[in-house]
């Protein structure tokens, strides 16, 4: 691996330290903004624990940054279906996230049957299946099945959206 790539990887993990630190500061500021008069029945108050948590976050952030700069590295998680030999495949991840976001945008307006179909079909496509028609049929079937399953079986009415009155 070239030194540039390793350098970038090291820097990427500094982002984790940055995130921890940012959350720590956020927790601190939020807790600091709470106004509570001292009360005999609750000497700890709502601020103490957030202060401790923010302290822990910031300490972890600093230690992690030091660790990374000294060459420490988090061990990426392996698994049955995971091959860490090749780098993250963003061509799969981004369309996958896209399908997910599309579902969020569509669900209240177009309803679960449509948004769920889009979600499943889009995800299958992003993950590399090329049986467009078979996948589409499975997606519609899954979305319809869960819609009626939740309504009839669990009494949960998922939004019908555009198909209101048809379903």
């Amino acid at each position, binding site marked *: 691996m070239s030194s540039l790539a390793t350098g970038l990887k090291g820097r990427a993990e500094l982002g984790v330290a940055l995130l921890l630190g940012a959350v720590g500061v956020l927790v601190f500021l939020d807790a600091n903004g709470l106004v509570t008069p001292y009360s005999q029945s609750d000497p700890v108050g709502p601020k103490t624990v957030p202060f401790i948590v923010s302290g822990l976050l910031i300490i972890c952030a600093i230690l992690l940054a030091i660790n990374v700069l000294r060459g420490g590295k988090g061990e990426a998680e392996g698994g*049955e*279906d995971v091959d860490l030999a090749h780098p993250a495949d963003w061509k799969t991840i981004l369309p996958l996230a896209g399908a997910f976001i599309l579902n969020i945008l569509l669900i209240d307006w177009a309803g679960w049957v449509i948004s769920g179909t889009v979600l499943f079909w889009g995800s299958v496509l992003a993950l*590399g*299946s*090329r049986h467009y028609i078979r996948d589409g049929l499975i997606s519609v079937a899954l979305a319809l099945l869960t819609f009626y399953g939740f309504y009839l079986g669990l009494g949960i009415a998922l939004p019908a959206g555009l198909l209101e009155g048809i379903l």
Partner: protein
Amino acid sequence: MTIVVGYVPTPEGEAALTQAIAEAKKSNETLLVINSSKGDALVDNRYAQEPDIQSIEERLADQGIQHIIKQPVRGHDAAAEVLDAADENDASLIVIGLRRRSPVGKLIMGSVSQRVLLEADCPVLAVKAE
């Protein structure tokens, strides 16, 4: 010129390989062995493992046949991989193994061999397992 054989570690695949070796010897051509997987499942028993490939390698070397073994995993189905290889290498012959399928099985799954037979630009030799 090249002979392309679609190999799978099954009796049909072995039969195809044996036939292809005979053909390659006869015409003294290079043998291109294709064993592909779509790679969309964790397990694919039609994808040959290292020991299998090694024994084929040895078998071909023993018989003095010029050969190339390829195991493409690119998300394409087996028919596409065999046809691609035949096109690229300007093959003189494709050898494939035929599997017995029920009519329903054919209807649902389609057939790799059917696609090769219909779409290939060169002669296709289809063999059955003994």
